[in-house]
């Protein structure tokens, strides 16, 4: 379910690192919790962000959620298809519905984030908490 070559945050973003660039999105768990996504707001290319800074906003029918930048870097591309088709985030959150691409400030920053196995146990614990 959760790609092994991604890294994950506690706020349910993912990043896939390739050399000195990274692709960022939200996880399948996140899209499921949000429900039907109806609006996506992303930063401009060239924006410099530190890890933890707001990257943009995803709105579902019922909720507004801020997306945080998993690592520091500069935005090199945004997925403009999401403006017209925000529902793609529900359909393919780990693929076609990536949010932004970054030029990483430090190639190794993502190493400190969770790997797929750690993220899966993290959300399993959350689900258990919710149904308790």
């Amino acid at each position, binding site marked *: 379910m959760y790609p092994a070559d991604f890294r994950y945050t506690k*706020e*349910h*973003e993912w990043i896939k690192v390739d050399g000195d660039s990274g692709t960022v999105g*939200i996880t399948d768990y*996140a899209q499921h*919790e*949000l*429900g*039907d996504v*109806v*609006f996506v707001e992303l930063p401009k290319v060239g924006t410099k962000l530190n890890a933890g800074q707001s990257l943009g*906003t*995803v*709105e*579902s*029918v*019922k*909720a*507004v*959620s*801020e*997306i*945080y930048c998993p690592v520091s870097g500069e935005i090199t591309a945004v997925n403009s298809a999401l403006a017209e088709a925000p529902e793609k985030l529900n359909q393919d959150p780990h693929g076609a519905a990536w949010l932004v691409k970054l030029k990483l400030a430090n190639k190794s920053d993502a190493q400190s984030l969770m790997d797929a196995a750690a993220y899966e146990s993290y959300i399993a614990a959350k689900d258990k908490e*919710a149904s308790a």
Partner: protein
Amino acid sequence: MLGSVARELFENHSVTTPATAELRKTALNSTHRRLGAKMVNFGGWDMPVEYSGILAEHQAVRTRAGLFDVSHMGEIEIRGPEALELVQFVTCNDAANLVIGQAQYSGLMTPKGTFVDDLLVHKISDAHYLLCVNASNQEKDFDHIVRYNRFGADVENAGPRYSQLAIQGPGAKALLQQFTKVPLDSLHYYHFAFGRVNGVDCLIARTGYTGEDGFEIYFSSEHSEKMWDYLLDAGQAIGMLPCGLGARNTLRLEAAMCLYGHEIDDSTTPWEAGLAWICKPDKGDFLGRDKLIAQRQRGIDRKLIGFEMLERLIARDGYVVSHDGQEVGRVTSGGPAPFLKKNIGMAYVPAKLAVVGSRIEIIVRGQASPARIVELPFYKRPKPN
């Protein structure tokens, strides 16, 4: 990113539930979980927010049918020869106008003429009224009614005895008719009848909170699972979906129906909320009557309006409304209107600004986004044949 989701729009502002408190459950709790519903804490109740998705559920109700478990709603029964006097004294609409088998939307009033709650008053007989009240207000409402029961009527908090299902949408009538001999065609809007549905004794009311034709049925809670399963199975043939509180909220917002804790609360009056049609000071004495007469004579300072966003941004509950750069009010309910495919909301603004067609701005993440004041309701169902 999801920190905000859980506590988002389904919080009922009228109550605060301690995190450690045991959530209350309807008789269908395990049924909802079996169906894979996403559950939320709604005013202290563990309730389904969505099953297949809010957009699909909303569309199902507008075009086919939807089934809602609304057993969390409260029922208060008032009995005795003094029942009407008590109902008249605590509510603002004129219950003396009701005939047996008729229901009425009304307000439970404070002595200030503001809302303790909004409710449906059903006249079962001259000496028996059933009030349907909001889930998280039922104890407060009960205490309030008892406190002002100087008439000696019998007041019962009957919520725990009842389950309530709402069958809503253009296909609701034909579907429900399969399960009952009560002739639903002759049951008019805001009327009710007693009869069996699927062999279970029910109060069948032609009421709802979606803006569509539909029914709300009240019955003894031990029959809940059987009733739910039969209706849902039969509804599959017409594309009926089980619907959660998410769609219930978007449907009522499109229909511009008030939600307690949002459009109305103990600081708002019926005049301000656009509910003059349920406020009848001429009926005789009731709680808040003098204040309401005085406010009507003086004129209201603020008024509930509906607006449409003119750009793509979405207004949400609590966002600031501004005009000429000045804060003039707050959004009471805002969000996408899935059927109308617009972003809409309701808000209180100064009465002099409450003019259909005029511009306001909604502050979305620090930016003023333009909106236009429009007629309410946003959505009106097509006239039935």
